[in-house]
């Protein structure tokens, strides 16, 4: 490894913050709201999506409290519909999709490739504003009583029958979609054109590869959901009937257009998480990732194949057996690149010098939970089995294992890993390990019973259920409470650490990668001199170079 070692060495004496860095270069609210620094924009995103996360979590809590009793009782079914819809809309469009790319990706990609900023810094700021404006519309729909269509906005319910704030909510999603498109565009151009001398494609950190694949989906998929949502809006306002079967329109066409984006959107959510895990596993095993190029290309494979599987959401929506079979087969194919990644992460651990710091605990959590989420995905890709478990809690459990057990674990792991770089401070190790444990236990207690109760036939989106399912729902609600504690804890100690934490030093983990070669926090232009790269990122060949924290 030969990236330049710049700045102070944490092993010598007590580390101190550098005198000049991106956080103190300029001050005042204008310097934040008009910033074009990708690191500051990353922080703006972090604050924004944390807000949305806890708002979405609040609705999850409402849903879980309602389901504590078979007869519901907390909310009327109509209010319950709004609660789970707002949970889904907020979590998917305003938290999960921007989560890792817009915060960690924004902060890290330019540093990881040795650039001063993203290719289009102003567009980067614009995309944050678009997310905020979209979010304001989302909140406005909430203020007006919320949306009750489910996060999928299925027609004809969304276009004709629903009396809730569908239009406002849909506009919010539409606008935030452009935020995502512009972020993807910025990443693609940046990764193509802004790499430092010597940073070839196959020296890139895998985090960058997975964000490249993610960006492709953002750019190719998001406009399709934008236009479908726009058509729903036309239909709602003008009553033109494009998805209205009474004049020959087809509601299932909306489902096709919607899932053409929204299935790949699942990979928008999980691919960046996979990128984080690749970094964590390599860093805490002190080994370059096993089968680097396979892991890199499997990201692209997931992005490409992910575009051809949307029909598996419509096995019971009147699809012909032939297309169902085809979609089923292609859905199975996604398992191959996913398995390549999982096996290669595991193989990386083999004979590695593993250290069990908090980010690595999250990475281990990810490996187990993603495995379960992925394998149950195969159940759902099987046409016959899907007929049985379609629209049950089995599906709910499956995608929460991917989205929460996968993406959110990776997000938290990544946040801990790069927190010293972002803030320049260390987080409290004991508290963070405790919270990682709470999250893992709480998560499994919440969602594992849902596999069972779903398989037994409990449908999703119902405000009430037969009494024999109560035990599973009580377990689930108990787990959700524990999970909630696990999420509040990091917010508390990260905030504490931001103000009171011990300075971390430039490279507290003693790992490689360009981001650790600059100061913590980095200077505004990331490096005092453009680095020249002569080797791949995580080559830990020489023992004497490894500094253990």
């Amino acid at each position, binding site marked *: 490894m030969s990236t330049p070692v710049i700045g102070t060495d944490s092993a010598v004496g007590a580390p101190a913050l550098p005198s000049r860095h991106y956080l103190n270069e300029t001050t005042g609210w204008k310097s934040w709201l008009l910033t074009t620094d990708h690191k500051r924009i990353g922080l703006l995103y972090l604050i924004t999506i944390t807000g949305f996360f806890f708002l979405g979590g609040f609705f999850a809590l409402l849903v879980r409290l309602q389901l504590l009793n078979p007869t519901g009782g907390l909310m009327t079914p109509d209010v319950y519909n709004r609660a789970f819809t707002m949970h889904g809309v907020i979590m998917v469009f305003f938290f999960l999709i921007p989560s890792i790319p817009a915060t960690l990706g924004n902060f890290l990609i330019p540093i990881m490739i040795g650039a001063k900023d993203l290719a289009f810094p102003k567009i980067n700021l614009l995309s944050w504003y678009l997310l905020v404006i979209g979010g304001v519309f989302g909140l406005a729909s909430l203020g007006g009583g919320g949306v009750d269509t489910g996060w999928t906005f299925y027609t004809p319910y969304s276009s004709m029958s629903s009396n809730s704030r569908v239009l406002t909510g849909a506009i919010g999603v539409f606008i935030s979609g452009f935020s995502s498109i512009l972020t993807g565009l910025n990443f693609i151009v940046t990764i193509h054109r802004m790499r430092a001398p010597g940073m070839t494609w196959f020296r890139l950190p895998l985090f960058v590869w997975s964000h490249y694949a993610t960006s492709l989906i953002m750019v190719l998929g998001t*406009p399709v959901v934008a236009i479908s949502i726009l*058509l729903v809006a036309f239909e709602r306002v003008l009553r033109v009937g494009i998805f209205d079967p*009474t004049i*020959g329109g087809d509601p299932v066409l909306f489902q096709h257009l919607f899932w053409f984006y929204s299935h790949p959107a699942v990979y928008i959510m999980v691919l960046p998480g996979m990128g984080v895990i690749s970094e964590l596993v390599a860093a805490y095993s002190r080994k370059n990732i096993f089968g680097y190029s396979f892991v890199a290309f499997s990201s692209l494979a997931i992005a490409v194949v992910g575009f051809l599987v949307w029909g598996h959401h419509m096995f019971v929506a009147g699809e012909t057996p032939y297309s169902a079979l085809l979609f089923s087969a292609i859905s199975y194919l996604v398992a191959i690149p996913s398995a390549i990644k999982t096996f290669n992460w595991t193989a990386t651990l083999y004979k590695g010098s593993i250290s069990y710091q908090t980010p690595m605990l999250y990475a281990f959590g990810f490996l187990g939970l993603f495995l379960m989420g992925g394998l149950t995905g195969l159940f759902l890709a099987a046409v016959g089995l899907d007929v049985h478990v379609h629209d049950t809690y089995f599906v709910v459990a499956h995608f929460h294992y991917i989205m929460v057990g996968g993406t959110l674990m990776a997000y938290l792991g990544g946040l801990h890993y790069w927190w010293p770089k972002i803030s320049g401070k260390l987080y409290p190790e004991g508290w963070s390990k405790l919270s990682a444990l709470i999250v893992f236990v709480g998560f499994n207690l919440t969602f594992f019973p849902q596999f069972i109760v779903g398989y037994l036939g409990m449908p999703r989106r119902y405000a009430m259920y037969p009494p024999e399912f109560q035990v599973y729902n009580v377990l689930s609600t108990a787990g959700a409470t524990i999970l909630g504690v696990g999420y509040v804890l990091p917010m508390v100690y990260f905030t504490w650490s931001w103000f009171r934490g011990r300075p971390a030093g430039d490279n507290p983990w003693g790992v490689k990668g360009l981001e650790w070669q600059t100061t913590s926090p980095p200077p505004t232009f990331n490096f005092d*001199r453009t680095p020249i790269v002569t080797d791949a990122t995580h080559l830990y060949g020489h023992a004497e170079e490894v500094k253990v924290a």
Partner: protein
Amino acid sequence: MPEAAVTHHGVHPGTHIPRLQHHFDTMAQQKEAVTLGMWVFLVTEIMFFGGMFCAYMIYRMWHYDGFVAASRELDLTLGAINTVVLIGSSLTVALGVHAAQVGKTKPLVSYLLLTGVLGLVFLVIKYFEYSSKFELHEAHHAAAMVRLFPGAGWFEVTGDLAPIAGEMRLFMVLYFALTGMHALHMIIGIGILAVILWMAMKGEFTPGWYAPVEIFGLYWHFVDIVWIFLFPLLYLVNRHG
């Protein structure tokens, strides 16, 4: 450990070269980046229109008769004139980019102006075409009365065409959605053009820096190409009878 190498071309190499933004190393890198950015954006646009094209083609297969009947009610002459106008504007914008490339400000301004005028001509013609769809009139190719704007309370088809009124309405929804989105892109394009024109008149473009003209040209050509697909799909494909 191989020798740690660093370059010494400074902290802010961009501050010395006008028009070079701070985070790029060279003008060539900056130009490549903005051009690639525009291409990626156009890919996004293709997918945006693609969703509607897809809906159009599926519905056309399912509701062939209604789509043929409604298509024949469109004004072929105005559509054809608009096609010529737009292709003309693509030519002028291409000539404009060339003028910028060789640093001829006066022709650049004229070509950009001409492009804007042609764009406005297109929109004016489109306005007249749209407004005729709000009036109840005799169908051109059938014994029927039609008012084709598909909004509730507007759309009306009586006489021979009444049995396929629903299908015709679907066609008109897609017609308005597709051409409306295209027109919106024209309006945005003319807005951007106004800024580029203003910059050109101030003489800001040089052979060393004319990227805005070039990427605007890419956008304008794209909007034209969308129309090149829309015109045959909406106006022409059913005219063989």
